[in-house]
């Protein structure tokens, strides 16, 4: 466990010392503030569009951050050959994968805290109250959801050597699921046979990241999700993450390194 935590700590240190997070945050904040400066018929209490723009940017940034940071971990270790120094020490390969995953995921969590604090400030500046339960659900579900792209990108980096093609592919998959995932079954019902079964299969296999997107509930101030379902969603993400990481470990376990 100490080795895993140490590896995770290194990943977080790296992300904190790189510019990516700041660039994404500044861009998100800037675009939100530009939107906030708009004059909507001299009404200063219009807020939902701002909440939506801000949350959408946070979602996009979250995916970009999770995938790009996870995708470069293993290739960077191999390229700088730090992997050899590391694995010559008492670190097993599953600890290596777990440490890298944990680091990326915790770093995403830290980034989300900053992003969602900003979101809370934007919402509070125009609304009289912040729906704390909803806010907490949004950030926790978003964070657990991001475990899946992080794991996917890590596994992908073992399949595709080039980090850029891996992150592009993972991002396309993530955005695809996010935007279309929940409709696949419906669409499949209207297709001719071989394709219908195929699409239905895809629907049941993919991790449904869109479940975790409760932006509509937050933007329009709906009551929070029943906590039991909230818990179910977190477990759902954890299960997929576990499966993907296991797959990554199986890929990495016997892989010759040179």
């Amino acid at each position, binding site marked *: 466990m*100490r080795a895993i935590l140490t*590896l995770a700590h290194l990943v977080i*240190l790296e992300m904190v010392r790189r510019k990516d997070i700041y660039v994404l945050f500044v861009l998100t904040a800037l675009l939100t503030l530009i939107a906030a400066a708009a004059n909507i018929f001299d009404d200063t209490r219009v807020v939902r569009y701002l909440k939506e723009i801000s949350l959408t940017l946070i979602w996009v940034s979250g995916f970009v951050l999770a995938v790009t940071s996870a995708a470069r971990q293993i290739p960077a270790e191999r390229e*700088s050959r730090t992997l050899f*120094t590391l694995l*010559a*020490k008492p670190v097993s390969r599953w600890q290596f994968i777990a440490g890298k995953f944990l680091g990326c995921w915790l770093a995403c969590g830290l980034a989300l805290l900053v992003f969602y604090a900003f979101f809370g400030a934007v919402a509070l500046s125009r609304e009289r109250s912040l729906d704390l339960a909803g806010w907490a659900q949004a950030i926790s579900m978003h964070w657990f959801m991001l475990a899946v792209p992080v794991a996917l990108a890590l596994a992908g980096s073992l399949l595709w050597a080039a980090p850029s093609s891996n992150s592009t592919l993972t991002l396309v998959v993530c955005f695809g699921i996010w935007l279309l995932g929940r409709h696949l079954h419906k669409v499949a019902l209207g297709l001719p046979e071989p394709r219908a079964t195929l699409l239905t299969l895809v629907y049941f296999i993919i991790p449904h990241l869109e479940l975790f997107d409760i932006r509509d509930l937050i933007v329009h101030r709906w009551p929070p999700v029943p906590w039991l379902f909230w818990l179910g969603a977190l477990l759902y993400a954890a299960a997929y993450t576990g499966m993907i990481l296991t797959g990554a470990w199986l890929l990495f376990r016997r892989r010759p*390194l040179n």
Partner: protein
Amino acid sequence: MTEVIQIEQLVVTYRDTETRATRTVVDRLTFTVRPGEVFGFLGPNGAGKTSTMNVLLGFTHAASGSASIFGVDVRQPIARQRIGYLPEMTYYYKFLTAEELLRAYGRIFGLDDGEIRRRTDELLALVELEAARRRLIRTYSKGMQQRLGLAQALLNQPDLLILDEPTSGLDPLGRMKVREIILRQKAAGKTVFFSSHELGEVESVCDRVAILHRGELKALGPVGEIKHPADGNLEQAFLRLIGWPGAPKPASDAGPADHQPTAP
């Protein structure tokens, strides 16, 4: 007493990614490294030294043959707690300082923070990086990185130190430092296994050497035994052994096989 490193009939092959043909880069290699000795693993570039070490550290798997460290097969989770390793060319995490790097590695070895601090101070003094200890590794020169590599390899006070071309790319002062460290380990009763292609450097520090050429062992034994009287130094012996045409002719016509020791 068990041998520190034992390699028997080791074969390492690579598959060419384009032609899909397998190429043998280490061919039926057999030798042992004994406790407390400084063992030079010599050979020109491409001889297969790094490939052998990769097998020893579990990075790649042998096509056939066996290798063990401290009596444990390298395919098992090896006794890495007792090994210090300096890879051939490494850049350390550029976003860390030397101090942070050693702290992270120390934690991986399970050392407590006080111990880590003590060893960090000592090792950074040894490799003369004290002045730069709080600078990001990004700003280090190649020589500084190499010295930091030595420091990290010594961090766990290893019983076996494996160094892959530790002197390559270092200035004369740096090489002297490496030799000093090797002798220091020897004085402490530790084993050192290192590869090199710069033979003049190693002559004075090695108890025994193995000379590898194109994956085959050409000679094994103490430096004095490998050298013919006609060879001025190890370098000339080496050139003769690998069959370089310009090498001095030995007095007798003995082939390299004469110097192959019998298997233990």
